[in-house]
C-alpha cells in the first residue's frame, strides 16, 4: 500500500518550514518531493534599499546560526569594493569569531542529530557544553546569536587580556568534552546503529550533485574554501581539512567532530599570535561601480555572496547562495528507498538552514515555458477559489 505522508511545513523534526512529501510503502520511502518557499523574506530586495553599513546587520539575519559567516562574506566583498583592508588584529578577531561560531554550530548540530535519532541525553549534554562557547561569544560581542562584530574595515570590539586567557582556558574543557563525544558517538550501539550506513552519498554523487561543506567532506571530497581559496588570514593558519570515507550520516558526524578539533587549534593559533594594533580602519560610505563575488566557508559549507555596486552607498544587487541550497539535491536523492525513521537523520545531516536558502521564486508556465509574474491580486483570487472548493461543508474563513 502506497501513501503520501507530509513532512512539514510544520513538523517536530523540522525547526523551520519546508515541505517534504514522502510517498511511502510500509516503512520504506519510494519517492520524495521537496517544496520550498514557505519562508521567503525578500532579503535580497531589501538589501538594495539599505546602505552597505546597514546591510551588515541585514545579512546577519539571513541565518540565525551562521550569522557571522554571512556578514563575513558580505563584508569581505564590500571591503574589496570600497578598497579598504581590515587591519590584522581586526582580521584575527573576525576569524576568531568565525571559528567560535563553527564550534557552536557543530556542537548544536551534534545535539540536533542526537535529538533526531531520539538520543535526548546526548542532545542535552552537547547543548550544555555548547553554552561554554556561547558564553565566550556573548562576552566578545555582547550577544549570543547575532554577534554584530563585523563592520566595514574591521571589527567593532576588541578583546582584552582577561578574555583572551579565559577563551584559552575554555578550550581545554571543550577539547575534553569533544573527545568524549567522539568516543561516545562512535560507541553507543543504539546510536551507531541508527547512523551507520544511512543516507549513503558516494564521492561521484557528491561531486555531481554539487554537495558542499561537511556533507561533501564526509563523502571523501576534500573541499574547503578556507584552504582552496584562502580568504582573510586563512592562508597563514595551519589546519587540516577533515574528511571521512564512510559516505553516510555517521561519516558526517565524524567529520563535524573532527572539524571541532581543527577549530580549537585554529582558535588557539589565532589567540596565541594575536597581533597588536587597531581593530578597524575607517571605511568610505560609497563604493565605486563594480561587482564582486565573495566566498567563505560557513559551518554548513561554502557560502557565496555576489555584490554589485553602482557608485552610491547602496548595493545595486546582492545575491546570496547559502550552503543549504547546494545540499538539497544531494539530500533528496538520499531519501529514496530509505526508511521513514531515517528521514529526520538524513535531512538533518546537511544541517539545513531553511530560511537562509529561500530565494525569489519565479513561476514558469509548464505549457508555454514562459516565466509568469503572479500578482498579489491573482494569488488572492487563487486562494479564494481553492478555499471555496475545499470548504463546502464548513464555512472556513479565508485568511487572505
Amino acid at each position, binding site marked *: 500500500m502506497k501513501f503520501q505522508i507530509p513532512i512539514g511545513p510544520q*513538523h517536530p*523534526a523540522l525547526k523551520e518550514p519546508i515541505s517534504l512529501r514522502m510517498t511511502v510503502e*510500509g516503512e520504506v520511502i519510494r519517492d520524495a518531493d521537496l517544496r520550498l518557499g514557505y519562508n521567503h523574506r525578500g532579503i535580497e530586495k531589501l538589501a538594495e534599499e539599505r546602505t552597505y553599513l546597514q546591510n551588515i546587520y541585514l545579512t546577519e539575519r539571513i541565518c540565525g546560526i551562521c550569522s557571522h559567516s554571512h556578514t563575513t562574506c558580505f563584508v569581505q566583498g564590500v571591503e574589496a569594493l570600497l578598497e579598504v583592508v581590515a587591519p590584522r588584529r581586526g582580521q584575527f578577531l573576525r576569524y576568531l569569531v568565525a571559528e567560535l561560531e563553527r564550534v557552536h554550530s557543530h556542537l548544536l548540530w551534534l545535539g540536533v542529530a542526537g535529538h533526531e535519532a*531520539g538520543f535526548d541525553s*546526548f542532545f542535552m549534554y552537547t547543548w550544555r557544553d555548547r553554552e561554554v562557547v556561547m558564553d565566550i561569544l556573548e562576552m566578545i560581542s555582547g550577544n549570543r546569536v547575532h554577534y554584530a562584530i563585523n563592520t566595514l574595515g574591521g571589527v567593532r570590539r576588541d578583546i582584552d587580556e582577561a578574555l583572551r586567557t579565559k577563551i584559552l582556558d575554555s578550550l581545554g574543557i571543550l577539547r575534553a568534552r569533544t573527545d568524549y563525544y567522539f568516543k561516545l558517538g562512535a560507541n553507543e550501539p543504539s546510536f551507531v*546503529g541508527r547512523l551507520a550506513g544511512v543516507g549513503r552519498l558516494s564521492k561521484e554523487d557528491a561531486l555531481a550533485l554539487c554537495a558542499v561543506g561537511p556533507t561533501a567532506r564526509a563523502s571523501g571530497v576534500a573541499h574547503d574554501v578556507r584552504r582552496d581559496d584562502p580568504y582573510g588570514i586563512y592562508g597563514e593558519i595551519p589546519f587540516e581539512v577533515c574528511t571521512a570515507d564512510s559516505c553516510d550520516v555517521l561519516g558526517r558526524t565524524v567529520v563535524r567532530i573532527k572539524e571541532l578539533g581543527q577549530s580549537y587549534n585554529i582558535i588557539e593559533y589565532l589567540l596565541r599570535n594575536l597581533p597588536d594594533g587597531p581593530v578597524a580602519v575607517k571605511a568610505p560610505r560609497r563604493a565605486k561601480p563594480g561587482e564582486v563575488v565573495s566566498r567563505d566557508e560557513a559551518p554548513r559549507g561554502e557560502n557565496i555572496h555576489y555584490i554589485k555596486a553602482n557608485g552610491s552607498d547602496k548595493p545595486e544587487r546582492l545575491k546570496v547562495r547559502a550552503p543549504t541550497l547546494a545540499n538539497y539535491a544531494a539530500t533528496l536523492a538520499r531519501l529514496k528507498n530509505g526508511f521513514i*525513521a531515517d528521514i529526520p537523520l538524513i535531512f538533518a545531516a546537511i544541517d539545513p538552514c531553511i530560511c537562509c536558502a529561500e530565494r525569489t521564486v519565479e513561476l514558469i508556465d509548464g505549457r508555454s515555458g514562459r516565466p509568469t509574474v503572479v500578482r498579489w491580486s491573482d494569488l488572492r483570487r487563487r486562494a479564494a477559489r481553492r478555499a471555496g472548493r475545499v470548504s463546502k461543508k464548513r464555512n472556513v474563513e479565508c485568511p487572505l
Partner: protein
Amino acid sequence: MSALKTLLYVFVYPGLVFMFVYSTFCEWFDRKVYARLQNRMGPTHTGRWGLLQPVADFFKLMAKEDIVPEKADKTMFTLLPIFGLAVVATAMLLLPVWHFNPAAGGFNSFSGDIIVLLYLLSLPTIIFFLAAWSSTNVFSTVGGTRVLTMFFGYEVPLFLAVLSPALLAGSWRLAEIARFFQAKPVLLLVNLPGFIVAVICVQAKLERTPFDIPHAETEIVGGTFTEFSGKKLAFFRLMTDVEMVVSSGLLATVFLGGFPGGLVLGFLQFIVKTLFVIFLLSLLRAATSRIRVDQVVSFAWGYLAPLAVVQLFFVILLKGFVL
C-alpha cells in the same frame, strides 16, 4: 459495613485514588530521574520539588478541548482510552500487595493469575493499535503498524522471561512465586538474565526510548496519539503511567522476591522495589538512542528471545537435577 469496605477498596485503596496518586508519583520520579541523569532539573515548580506536576498535567489536559477527527471511528475513538485505563487498573489489582485475604487467595490471587496479568498487560498494546487505526491519520496509521510490529518482537521474550521464575517456583500464582523466592533468596540470582530481558521488554512495552518508535516525534509527529487531545490523551497518559507501575510491580514480584512483611512493611517494599525497577527503566531511557522498528524485531529475536530460552532451559535443568 461490607458495602462501605468494598467502596473503599474500589475508590480509595488500592482503587482509583491510590492508583492515580501512585502512578503520577511514579511519573514524577521517572521524569525527575531522567532529568537529573541529563544534568537538568526536571519538574520543580508545581508542588514541593515539582511533585504535583504530573497531576497538574493531567488536570490541564482534562480541561482542554477534546477534538475528534471527522473521519475517525467515533465510538472506538472515545471508548478506547477508558477501556485502556480500566484494563490496567484491573491488572493492578492482581499484584500481590493488597492483602485482602492473604491465606485463602481470593478474587485477586488465584492459581494462574500471572498469566492473566501478562494478558492484561498485552491488551494496552492492542488498544494503542486500535486507537491509532481508528483515528485514520497517516502518522497514526504508521504508528499503529509500528506498535504491532514491535509487539511481535518483544512479547515472546517477555513471556519466556517471566515464566522461568514461575517454573522454578512451580506455581502459577504470583503470591506463591514470591513466597518461594522469599524462602530461598539465593535462587533469585539464577533469574538475573531473565530479569535483564524482562526489563528491556517492559521498556519496549511502555514504548520508551529506545523503543519509543510508535510515537517518535521527529519522524511521525505524535504517532499513535497524533489525533488524541484533551481528556482522551489524559487518559492514555495515565494509562501508560499505571502500566509502568503494574509492570514494574510484576517484575518486582517475580524477580525481586515480592513484597513480604504484611500490610505496612509489604507496602513499603512495594514502593522501594517498584521505584528501583522504574529507576532502571529511566536509566535505560537516558542511555540509549531510539532504534528503527526493524532493528527492534531483529534485536528481540536475535538476542532477547535466545537469552530467555537459555534461561528457561537452565531453570528446567536446575529444577530437574538439583532441586
